[in-house]
């Protein structure tokens, strides 16, 4: 059972890497953006199936930081500066929402 799970994970990751880097023909930045998008997909798995509420909060926090990197790559690809503005705003809002979720999880009031 354990070996089967390892083999399944290795097959999925190897297949995604092969399809992304050898089959797909495109610019290099698009391939890197694809890797970041797959990472976001795995984090969404933890958001949906996380066994405890703290897992979901951790995954949402991590998703915010991943999206900052993704927006930086978008800014490089389209050569536009305003994606970084969105990334800065996203960083601040993700921080505030993580703190609020942590307070709610601990059982304290928001004005405490």
């Amino acid at each position, binding site marked *: 059972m354990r070996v089967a799970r390892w083999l399944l994970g290795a097959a999925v990751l190897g297949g995604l890497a092969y399809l992304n880097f050898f089959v797909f023909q495109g610019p*290099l930045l698009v391939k*890197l953006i694809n*890797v*970041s998008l797959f*990472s976001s997909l*795995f*984090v969404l*798995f*933890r958001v949906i199936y996380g066994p*405890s*509420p*703290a*897992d979901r*909060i*951790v*995954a949402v*926090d*991590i998703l915010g*930081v*991943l999206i*900052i*990197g993704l927006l*930086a*790559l978008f*800014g*490089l690809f389209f050569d536009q*500066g305003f994606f*970084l*503005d969105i*990334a*800065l705003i996203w*960083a*601040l809002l*993700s*921080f505030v929402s*993580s*703190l609020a*979720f*942590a*307070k709610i*999880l*601990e*059982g304290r009031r928001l004005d405490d």
Partner: protein
Amino acid sequence: MIRQTIGMVFIWMGIAFDFLGVLGLLRLPDVYTRLQAATKCITFGTAGLLFGVFIMKGFSSFGFKALLGIVFIFLTSPTAAHAISRAAHRSGIPLAEESVIDLYQADRELKGE
């Protein structure tokens, strides 16, 4: 040309750290180890990626926004991780069965909370 190459090296390194952190988030057994792997790897990875963007774009408004993003991430991410782990421990989420010591629990029992 050399600036583009060094920036792409930093961006590759950042993407690799992001991916390894996400693997840790999927694979490790409980909340605290997941938090540790994911927060450290992804903070360092995204900061490296933004530093690569800064090297590629130089001293323009684009590059300085990337530097400001690094400062924001380094200020906010450890704070959020600390608050989440403290809240998880206080709300009674157990550690994994493989873990051997829980010093925060012992400290709280010593203080009589």
